[in-house]
Protein backbone atom coordinates (compact mmCIF):
# COMPACT_ATOMS: atom_id res chain seq x y z
CA UNK A 1 0.00 0.00 0.00
CA UNK A 2 1.23 3.51 -0.75
CA UNK A 3 0.75 6.75 1.10
CA UNK A 4 -2.39 8.41 -0.18
CA UNK A 5 -0.38 11.39 -1.35
CA UNK A 6 3.04 10.65 -2.77
CA UNK A 7 6.04 11.08 -0.55
CA UNK A 8 7.94 14.24 -1.42
CA UNK A 9 10.82 16.34 -0.20
CA UNK A 10 9.99 19.34 1.93
CA UNK A 11 11.98 22.52 1.55
CA UNK A 12 15.10 23.36 3.54
CA UNK A 13 16.32 26.92 3.97
CA UNK A 14 19.48 27.25 1.82
CA UNK A 15 21.58 28.56 4.72
CA UNK A 16 20.60 25.54 6.78
CA UNK A 17 21.32 23.18 3.89
CA UNK A 18 24.76 24.75 3.58
CA UNK A 19 25.45 24.22 7.27
CA UNK A 20 24.14 20.65 7.36
CA UNK A 21 24.69 18.84 4.11
CA UNK A 22 22.21 15.96 3.98
CA UNK A 23 19.61 17.57 6.24
CA UNK A 24 16.11 17.23 4.85
CA UNK A 25 12.49 16.57 5.57
CA UNK A 26 10.27 14.05 3.85
CA UNK A 27 6.59 14.95 3.79
CA UNK A 28 3.33 13.28 2.89
CA UNK A 29 -0.33 13.92 3.51
CA UNK A 30 -2.79 11.24 4.48
CA UNK A 31 -6.51 11.16 5.11
CA UNK A 32 -6.72 9.66 8.56
CA UNK A 33 -8.10 10.20 12.02
CA UNK A 34 -6.64 9.49 15.40
CA UNK A 35 -8.50 6.65 17.03
CA UNK A 36 -7.91 3.53 19.11
CA UNK A 37 -5.50 1.21 17.43
CA UNK A 38 -6.89 -1.98 15.93
CA UNK A 39 -5.74 -5.38 17.17
CA UNK A 40 -3.23 -5.76 14.33
CA UNK A 41 -1.32 -2.64 15.35
CA UNK A 42 -1.39 -3.63 19.02
CA UNK A 43 -0.06 -7.03 18.03
CA UNK A 44 2.73 -5.38 16.07
CA UNK A 45 3.68 -3.27 19.09
CA UNK A 46 3.65 -6.38 21.23
CA UNK A 47 5.94 -8.14 18.78
CA UNK A 48 8.32 -5.17 18.82
CA UNK A 49 8.24 -5.21 22.62
CA UNK A 50 9.12 -8.90 22.60
CA UNK A 51 12.13 -8.53 20.33
CA UNK A 52 13.45 -5.46 22.16
CA UNK A 53 15.76 -6.18 25.06
CA UNK A 54 18.37 -4.54 27.23
CA UNK A 55 21.26 -5.56 25.02
CA UNK A 56 19.76 -3.82 22.03
CA UNK A 57 19.03 -0.72 24.10
CA UNK A 58 22.62 -0.68 25.29
CA UNK A 59 24.11 -0.97 21.82
CA UNK A 60 21.55 1.26 20.16
CA UNK A 61 23.67 4.39 20.15
CA UNK A 62 26.22 2.62 17.97
CA UNK A 63 23.67 1.77 15.29
CA UNK A 64 24.19 4.03 12.27
CA UNK A 65 20.82 5.80 12.31
CA UNK A 66 20.64 6.24 16.08
CA UNK A 67 24.21 7.48 16.00
CA UNK A 68 23.37 9.99 13.25
CA UNK A 69 20.54 11.46 15.34
CA UNK A 70 22.76 11.55 18.42
CA UNK A 71 25.50 13.37 16.56
CA UNK A 72 23.00 15.83 15.12
CA UNK A 73 21.62 16.49 18.61
CA UNK A 74 25.14 17.33 19.77
CA UNK A 75 25.76 19.58 16.79
CA UNK A 76 22.60 21.61 17.42
CA UNK A 77 23.35 22.15 21.09
CA UNK A 78 21.39 19.34 22.76
CA UNK A 79 23.02 16.83 25.10
CA UNK A 80 21.51 13.48 24.03
CA UNK A 81 22.11 12.17 27.55
CA UNK A 82 19.77 14.87 28.78
CA UNK A 83 17.17 15.00 26.01
CA UNK A 84 17.19 11.61 24.32
CA UNK A 85 16.86 11.28 20.56
CA UNK A 86 13.42 9.83 19.73
CA UNK A 87 14.52 6.23 19.10
CA UNK A 88 16.53 6.10 22.34
CA UNK A 89 13.66 7.69 24.25
CA UNK A 90 11.27 5.05 22.88
CA UNK A 91 13.69 2.28 23.84
CA UNK A 92 14.11 3.62 27.38
CA UNK A 93 10.35 3.92 27.73
CA UNK A 94 10.04 0.29 26.58
CA UNK A 95 12.57 -0.75 29.24
CA UNK A 96 10.83 1.29 31.91
CA UNK A 97 7.26 0.27 31.09
CA UNK A 98 8.10 -3.28 30.05
CA UNK A 99 6.43 -2.84 26.65
CA UNK A 100 5.51 -0.36 23.97
CA UNK A 101 2.13 0.84 25.17
CA UNK A 102 -0.63 1.33 22.66
CA UNK A 103 -2.12 4.82 22.82
CA UNK A 104 -3.83 5.67 19.55
CA UNK A 105 -3.23 5.10 15.85
CA UNK A 106 -1.05 8.18 15.42
CA UNK A 107 1.27 7.54 18.36
CA UNK A 108 1.37 3.83 17.61
CA UNK A 109 2.19 4.39 13.93
CA UNK A 110 5.01 6.74 14.90
CA UNK A 111 6.33 4.26 17.47
CA UNK A 112 6.27 1.33 15.06
CA UNK A 113 8.06 3.38 12.39
CA UNK A 114 10.57 4.65 14.94
CA UNK A 115 11.43 1.24 16.37
CA UNK A 116 11.56 -0.49 13.00
CA UNK A 117 13.58 2.17 11.14
CA UNK A 118 15.05 4.53 13.75
CA UNK A 119 13.46 7.49 11.94
CA UNK A 120 11.14 9.82 13.79
CA UNK A 121 7.99 10.90 11.98
CA UNK A 122 5.95 13.90 13.11
CA UNK A 123 2.23 14.32 12.48
CA UNK A 124 0.44 17.64 12.11
CA UNK A 125 -3.14 18.59 11.40
CA UNK A 126 -3.00 19.19 7.64
CA UNK A 127 -5.85 21.70 7.89
CA UNK A 128 -3.63 23.88 10.06
CA UNK A 129 -0.61 23.71 7.74
CA UNK A 130 -0.25 26.41 5.13
CA UNK A 131 1.57 25.06 2.09
CA UNK A 132 4.54 22.74 2.21
CA UNK A 133 6.47 21.73 5.31
CA UNK A 134 10.12 22.61 5.55
CA UNK A 135 13.03 23.29 7.84
CA UNK A 136 14.42 26.68 8.64
CA UNK A 137 16.00 28.83 11.29
CA UNK A 138 13.75 31.10 13.34
CA UNK A 139 14.07 34.85 13.12
CA UNK A 140 14.51 36.98 16.25
CA UNK A 141 11.23 37.57 18.06
CA UNK A 142 9.40 34.80 16.22
CA UNK A 143 6.89 32.71 18.16
CA UNK A 144 6.08 29.05 17.72
CA UNK A 145 2.86 28.89 15.70
CA UNK A 146 2.73 32.68 15.61
CA UNK A 147 1.40 33.07 19.13
CA UNK A 148 3.08 30.35 21.19
CA UNK A 149 6.45 30.04 22.86
CA UNK A 150 8.94 32.77 21.89
CA UNK A 151 11.80 31.24 19.96
CA UNK A 152 15.35 32.40 20.49
CA UNK A 153 16.86 33.57 17.19
CA UNK A 154 18.51 30.77 15.27
CA UNK A 155 16.24 28.01 16.59
CA UNK A 156 15.80 25.11 14.16
CA UNK A 157 12.14 24.66 13.39
CA UNK A 158 9.74 22.75 11.21
CA UNK A 159 7.71 25.39 9.44
CA UNK A 160 4.99 25.72 6.90
CA UNK A 161 5.10 28.56 4.42
CA UNK A 162 3.84 31.05 7.00
CA UNK A 163 5.12 30.16 10.44
CA UNK A 164 7.08 27.78 12.63
CA UNK A 165 4.81 24.89 13.61
CA UNK A 166 7.22 22.89 15.72
CA UNK A 167 10.75 22.63 17.03
CA UNK A 168 12.84 20.35 14.84
CA UNK A 169 12.82 17.78 17.66
CA UNK A 170 10.41 18.84 20.35
CA UNK A 171 7.26 20.82 20.94
CA UNK A 172 4.55 21.27 18.35
CA UNK A 173 2.90 24.67 18.13
CA UNK A 174 -0.48 24.86 19.87
CA UNK A 175 -3.30 23.89 17.53
CA UNK A 176 -0.99 22.44 14.86
CA UNK A 177 -0.82 18.91 16.22
CA UNK A 178 -3.26 16.11 15.53
CA UNK A 179 -6.52 16.43 17.47
CA UNK A 180 -9.76 14.45 17.55
CA UNK A 181 -11.08 16.84 14.87
CA UNK A 182 -8.23 16.13 12.48
CA UNK A 183 -9.29 14.48 9.24
CA UNK A 184 -6.09 14.86 7.22
CA UNK A 185 -2.58 14.64 8.58
CA UNK A 186 0.63 16.15 7.31
CA UNK A 187 3.47 13.77 8.09
CA UNK A 188 7.05 14.94 8.25
CA UNK A 189 10.24 12.98 8.93
CA UNK A 190 13.39 14.94 9.61
CA UNK A 191 16.33 13.31 7.86
CA UNK A 192 19.57 14.23 9.57
CA UNK A 193 22.94 13.81 7.85
CA UNK A 194 23.90 10.15 7.76
CA UNK A 195 20.39 8.72 7.63
CA UNK A 196 19.74 6.94 4.32
CA UNK A 197 16.80 7.91 2.13
CA UNK A 198 15.44 4.39 2.18
CA UNK A 199 15.01 4.42 5.97
CA UNK A 200 13.13 7.70 5.83
CA UNK A 201 10.92 6.42 3.03
CA UNK A 202 10.24 3.23 4.95
CA UNK A 203 9.34 5.14 8.11
CA UNK A 204 6.91 7.34 6.18
CA UNK A 205 5.45 4.32 4.43
CA UNK A 206 4.92 2.46 7.72
CA UNK A 207 3.20 5.48 9.26
CA UNK A 208 1.01 6.11 6.24
CA UNK A 209 0.11 2.45 5.98
CA UNK A 210 -0.94 2.14 9.61
CA UNK A 211 -2.85 5.41 9.59
CA UNK A 212 -4.72 4.79 6.36
CA UNK A 213 -5.51 1.15 6.99
CA UNK A 214 -6.66 1.57 10.60
Amino acid at each position, binding site marked *: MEAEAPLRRGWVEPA*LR*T*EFSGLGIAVAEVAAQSRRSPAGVKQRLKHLSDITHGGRA*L*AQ*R*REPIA*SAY*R*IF*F*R*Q*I*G*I*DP*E*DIRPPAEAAMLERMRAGRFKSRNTVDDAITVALVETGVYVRAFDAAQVQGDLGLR*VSVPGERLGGDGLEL*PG*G*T*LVIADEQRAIG*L*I*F*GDTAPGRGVSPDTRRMALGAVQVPGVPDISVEEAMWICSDILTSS
Partner: protein
Amino acid sequence: MPELVHSHISDGGEHRTSLLRRDVDEAAARRTLRQQIARLERDLSALFTAAHPRQGLAWDVPAPGGPRLLSIGELEVLRDALADRLEVTRRTLRDRGYVETQNRERIEEMLAEPRRFKWVRISNDDIGEPGCKHWHARPRFGLLGMLMGWWRVKISSGCP
Protein backbone atom coordinates in the same frame (compact mmCIF):
# COMPACT_ATOMS: atom_id res chain seq x y z
CA MET B 1 39.10 62.10 -10.04
CA PRO B 2 38.87 58.89 -12.07
CA GLU B 3 41.70 57.57 -9.95
CA LEU B 4 39.73 58.44 -6.80
CA VAL B 5 36.58 56.70 -8.11
CA HIS B 6 38.62 53.71 -9.17
CA SER B 7 40.27 53.59 -5.78
CA HIS B 8 36.88 53.83 -4.00
CA ILE B 9 35.34 51.04 -6.08
CA SER B 10 38.40 48.91 -5.68
CA ASP B 11 38.32 49.33 -1.89
CA GLY B 12 34.63 48.33 -1.75
CA GLY B 13 35.32 45.28 -3.85
CA GLU B 14 38.12 44.20 -1.59
CA HIS B 15 35.90 44.73 1.44
CA ARG B 16 33.15 42.56 -0.08
CA THR B 17 35.69 39.91 -1.03
CA SER B 18 37.07 40.00 2.46
CA LEU B 19 33.58 39.60 4.00
CA LEU B 20 32.76 36.78 1.62
CA ARG B 21 36.05 35.06 2.39
CA ARG B 22 35.39 35.43 6.12
CA ASP B 23 31.91 33.88 5.71
CA VAL B 24 33.32 31.02 3.67
CA ASP B 25 36.15 30.49 6.16
CA GLU B 26 33.75 30.52 9.11
CA ALA B 27 31.38 28.07 7.42
CA ALA B 28 34.31 25.79 6.71
CA ALA B 29 35.48 26.11 10.31
CA ARG B 30 32.00 25.20 11.59
CA ARG B 31 31.90 22.18 9.29
CA THR B 32 35.29 21.02 10.55
CA LEU B 33 34.19 21.46 14.15
CA ARG B 34 30.99 19.50 13.50
CA GLN B 35 33.03 16.68 11.96
CA GLN B 36 35.25 16.63 15.04
CA ILE B 37 32.18 16.60 17.30
CA ALA B 38 30.74 13.71 15.27
CA ARG B 39 33.94 11.70 15.63
CA LEU B 40 34.14 12.37 19.37
CA GLU B 41 30.49 11.45 19.85
CA ARG B 42 31.03 8.16 17.99
CA ASP B 43 34.07 7.42 20.16
CA LEU B 44 32.12 8.24 23.30
CA SER B 45 29.26 5.97 22.21
CA ALA B 46 31.71 3.14 21.52
CA LEU B 47 33.21 3.66 24.96
CA PHE B 48 29.75 3.65 26.54
CA THR B 49 28.98 0.28 24.99
CA ALA B 50 32.39 -1.14 25.87
CA ALA B 51 32.13 0.10 29.44
CA HIS B 52 29.07 -1.99 30.21
CA PRO B 53 28.38 -3.24 32.88
CA ARG B 54 30.58 -0.84 34.82
CA GLN B 55 28.58 1.65 36.82
CA GLY B 56 29.26 5.11 38.14
CA LEU B 57 30.74 6.61 34.99
CA ALA B 58 29.58 10.04 33.87
CA TRP B 59 28.51 10.41 30.24
CA ASP B 60 26.89 13.82 30.14
CA VAL B 61 28.59 16.67 28.34
CA PRO B 62 27.37 20.21 28.97
CA ALA B 63 25.45 21.46 25.96
CA PRO B 64 24.91 25.10 25.04
CA GLY B 65 21.18 24.51 24.52
CA GLY B 66 19.23 24.06 21.37
CA PRO B 67 18.00 23.13 18.89
CA ARG B 68 19.83 25.92 17.09
CA LEU B 69 22.79 26.77 14.93
CA LEU B 70 25.83 27.02 17.13
CA SER B 71 28.53 29.61 16.67
CA ILE B 72 32.17 28.71 16.14
CA GLY B 73 32.90 29.55 19.77
CA GLU B 74 30.10 27.31 21.04
CA LEU B 75 31.17 24.46 18.76
CA GLU B 76 34.74 24.78 20.02
CA VAL B 77 33.62 24.68 23.66
CA LEU B 78 31.44 21.66 22.92
CA ARG B 79 34.25 19.85 21.08
CA ASP B 80 36.63 20.50 23.97
CA ALA B 81 34.06 19.33 26.51
CA LEU B 82 33.50 16.13 24.53
CA ALA B 83 37.23 15.55 24.24
CA ASP B 84 37.61 16.11 27.99
CA ARG B 85 34.76 13.72 28.80
CA LEU B 86 36.24 11.11 26.49
CA GLU B 87 39.69 11.48 28.00
CA VAL B 88 38.48 11.39 31.60
CA THR B 89 36.27 8.37 30.93
CA ARG B 90 39.05 6.53 29.09
CA ARG B 91 41.43 7.22 31.97
CA THR B 92 38.86 6.04 34.52
CA LEU B 93 38.27 2.87 32.52
CA ARG B 94 42.02 2.29 32.17
CA ASP B 95 42.41 2.64 35.93
CA ARG B 96 39.49 0.32 36.56
CA GLY B 97 40.86 -2.08 33.97
CA TYR B 98 44.13 -2.23 35.89
CA VAL B 99 42.30 -2.96 39.15
CA GLU B 100 40.10 -5.54 37.41
CA THR B 101 43.16 -7.32 36.03
CA GLN B 102 44.68 -7.36 39.50
CA ASN B 103 41.44 -8.81 40.85
CA ARG B 104 41.39 -11.52 38.17
CA GLU B 105 44.94 -12.48 39.08
CA ARG B 106 43.92 -12.46 42.71
CA ILE B 107 41.10 -14.89 41.98
CA GLU B 108 43.63 -17.24 40.36
CA GLU B 109 45.84 -16.97 43.43
CA MET B 110 42.87 -17.43 45.75
CA LEU B 111 41.87 -20.60 43.94
CA ALA B 112 45.43 -21.90 44.18
CA GLU B 113 46.00 -20.97 47.81
CA PRO B 114 42.75 -20.10 49.62
CA ARG B 115 44.50 -20.03 52.99
CA ARG B 116 46.45 -16.91 51.98
CA PHE B 117 43.25 -14.98 51.27
CA LYS B 118 41.11 -15.61 54.35
CA TRP B 119 37.62 -14.08 54.00
CA VAL B 120 38.52 -12.23 50.80
CA ARG B 121 35.51 -11.80 48.55
CA ILE B 122 35.72 -10.72 44.91
CA SER B 123 32.62 -10.17 42.82
CA ASN B 124 31.95 -9.94 39.09
CA ASP B 125 31.62 -6.21 39.59
CA ASP B 126 35.25 -6.14 40.76
CA ILE B 127 36.43 -7.70 37.50
CA GLY B 128 34.17 -5.69 35.20
CA GLU B 129 31.84 -8.54 34.32
CA PRO B 130 28.04 -8.60 34.37
CA GLY B 131 26.16 -10.72 36.88
CA CYS B 132 26.32 -11.39 40.61
CA LYS B 133 28.85 -14.20 40.73
CA HIS B 134 31.48 -13.90 43.45
CA TRP B 135 34.48 -15.76 44.81
CA HIS B 136 34.70 -15.98 48.56
CA ALA B 137 37.61 -17.51 50.52
CA ARG B 138 36.04 -19.15 53.58
CA PRO B 139 36.71 -22.12 55.84
CA ARG B 140 35.27 -25.54 55.08
CA PHE B 141 33.01 -26.80 57.91
CA GLY B 142 32.83 -23.40 59.60
CA LEU B 143 34.64 -22.94 62.92
CA LEU B 144 36.28 -26.33 62.74
CA GLY B 145 37.70 -25.61 59.29
CA MET B 146 38.88 -22.22 60.52
CA LEU B 147 40.73 -23.81 63.42
CA MET B 148 42.12 -26.57 61.23
CA GLY B 149 43.10 -24.23 58.41
CA TRP B 150 40.78 -25.90 55.86
CA TRP B 151 40.16 -22.96 53.59
CA ARG B 152 38.51 -23.03 50.20
CA VAL B 153 37.08 -20.59 47.64
CA LYS B 154 33.35 -20.74 47.41
CA ILE B 155 31.97 -19.58 44.07
CA SER B 156 28.42 -18.29 44.15
CA SER B 157 26.18 -19.33 41.30
CA GLY B 158 24.77 -15.91 40.47
CA CYS B 159 22.07 -13.43 41.30
CA PRO B 160 19.53 -14.23 44.02
